[in-house]
């Protein structure tokens, strides 16, 4: 489907959370591809299963309650789900690293930021001396725009945006092939958001890292993503490149998402919200999961869960009416 080789390919991934209150179908039969060097935007509401998907890639899901039931996560030609703990540890942080949503809580409060960056460097380069690792950590800090002499400071001495920079430095310290960013700017002020995004884009270009960007901000998607996957209730409902998705959104849910964005160009704008709420993941609707909220739903939609269709080259939509 693409001239690039795929760095990451997820096939039929199903993740459930088994709790006393019932089984949460967090991710169901999910398929996703990411070509080398590209950025994929993973879009969807809270609870759609975005974070679960990326945590499944890294295999850092809390088990229990999370269970990966089926699927393959093929990274550089190898199925990560078949790897043992030890070889998986060598991939985490080195090949794939992650930037988390909340910089306030993602850094260990009792360890200096320098040491926290050094940790990942020394983990994946056993031969490096402590001093060299420290120098490298300082370089990384400089790279993200923090003075190297702050390496000895603790996280609480930094602002939110600075902490996110530290986390970015940490994530890029081993020059990973895939960087996963889980809503990296949600917890930040708007002005800081732009700075952090700009920094990420710059560093991504510099290191030629592939990236998965989780967000619910379509503006961010438009700015930095090459491909977009729209997730709803554990499924990818639409997947395509940026052009396809932004110019020809086809799934009713995607259309709905676009209708929620205020358009500054038009004089009078009416935001059209998507009616209803995200379905209860322990008790998902039958058929198409979006049908209770879908303005185009027919009776057929409540019975059949539609398969994904390729409506044009590389543009997949999961809807009966396309």
């Amino acid at each position, binding site marked *: 489907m693409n001239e690039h080789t795929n760095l990451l390919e997820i096939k039929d991934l199903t993740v459930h959370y088994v709790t006393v209150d019932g089984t949460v179908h967090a991710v169901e039969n999910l398929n996703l591809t990411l070509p080398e060097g590209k950025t994929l935007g993973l879009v969807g509401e809270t609870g759609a299963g975005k974070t679960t998907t990326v945590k499944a890639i890294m295999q850092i899901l809390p088990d229990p309650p999370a269970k990966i039931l089926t699927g393959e996560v093929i990274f550089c030609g190898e199925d990560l789900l078949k790897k043992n703990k030890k070889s998986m540890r060598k991939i985490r942080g080195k090949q794939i690293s992650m930037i*988390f949503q909340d910089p306030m*809580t993602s850094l260990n409060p*009792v360890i200096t930021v320098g040491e926290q960056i050094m940790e990942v460097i020394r*983990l994946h380069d056993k031969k490096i001396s402590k001093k060299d690792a420290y120098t490298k950590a300082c370089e990384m800090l400089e790279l993200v725009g923090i003075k190297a002499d702050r390496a000895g400071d603790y996280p609480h001495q930094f602002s939110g945006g600075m902490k996110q920079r530290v986390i970015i430095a940490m994530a890029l310290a081993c020059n990973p092939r895939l960087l996963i960013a889980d809503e990296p700017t949600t917890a930040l002020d708007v002005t800081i958001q732009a700075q952090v995004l700009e920094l990420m884009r710059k560093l991504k270009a510099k290191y030629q890292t592939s990236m998965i960007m989780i967000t619910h901000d379509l503006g961010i998607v438009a700015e930095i993503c090459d491909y977009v996957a729209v997730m709803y209730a554990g499924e990818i409902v639409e997947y395509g490149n940026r052009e396809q998705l932004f110019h020809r959104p086809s799934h009713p849910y995607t259309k709905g998402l676009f209708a929620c964005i205020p358009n500054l160009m038009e004089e009078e704008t009416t935001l059209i919200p998507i009616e209803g709420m995200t379905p209860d993941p322990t008790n998902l609707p039958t058929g198409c999961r979006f049908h209770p909220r879908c303005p185009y739903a027919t009776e057929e939609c409540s019975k059949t869960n539609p398969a994904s269709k390729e409506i044009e080259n590389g543009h997949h939509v999961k809807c009966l009416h396309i």
Partner: protein
Amino acid sequence: MLKYIGRRLLMMIPVMLGVILIVFTLMYITPGDPVDTLLGDDATPEMAEQLREELGLNGTYIERLGKYLVNLAHGDLGICYSTKQPVMDRIIQTFPNSLKLAGCSVLLSVAIGLTLGIVSAVKQYSLFDNIAMTLAMIGNAMPNFWQGLLLMLLFALHWKILPASGFDGWTYMILPAITIGTSSAAAVARMTRSSMLEVIRQDYITTAEAKGQTELKIIIFHALKNALIPVITTIGIQFGHLLGGAVLTESIFAVPGVGKMMVDAIKARNYPVVQGGVLMVALTFSLVNLAVDILYAFVDPRIRSQYK
């Protein structure tokens, strides 16, 4: 930091004065005349009067309190009624024993409690966790004087492998230390477990995991240091309980410590000894609490930056 310690030490002065006031007042209103106890039945009123004068038992409440405080300022805690020694000397004789015992118990309870708590948290809901936590619940509920008696019955009277009472060497320390330390070990274990569980769920643990760090190192480097903060509080509080628990345990095992001295003194209406003892214990407890707060600063940089 030094300024902070200095301020805390200064703040201890009014607290200690309060302690003195409370204990002095309680002893003042305690019914019964110590002179009667000391002299026995066949004493003449003159002898009683003379002794009362000697012990400073005459005078109003205010006069006696004032005199006590003035003497205290000179390091004089009064005279023990029964041995006629200065109370200070008696405390100097007994206090090291209590401190040794408390120290052993703290070490014991921290070693056992931390280990059980950490392993239980890491292996949550496992068989080990269930057994350890049930033991901790039992340890928490067991009256320590009862446990002391049972231990004495088994190890000293039945199997005769450890001495039942006295304080002539480290073997004498084992049973009392276990007796005092059990409930603290239980408390530390429970606190460590819940604190560890809380910390393990924090985002920064996921961060460490995402770095490719091993489970064991995550627990040691990332989780433990954070989890330790509430545990330190518990240990500090437990130290107070240890000093208190020593009152009973020292009596059971006849350990010549402050606790036993005070219980005997209360029964004999030997007020200066009670006052001196309580003051000493309260002072130790406050100092331990200060040490705990300083320890926080070493563990948690956020607290360190507050102590300016």
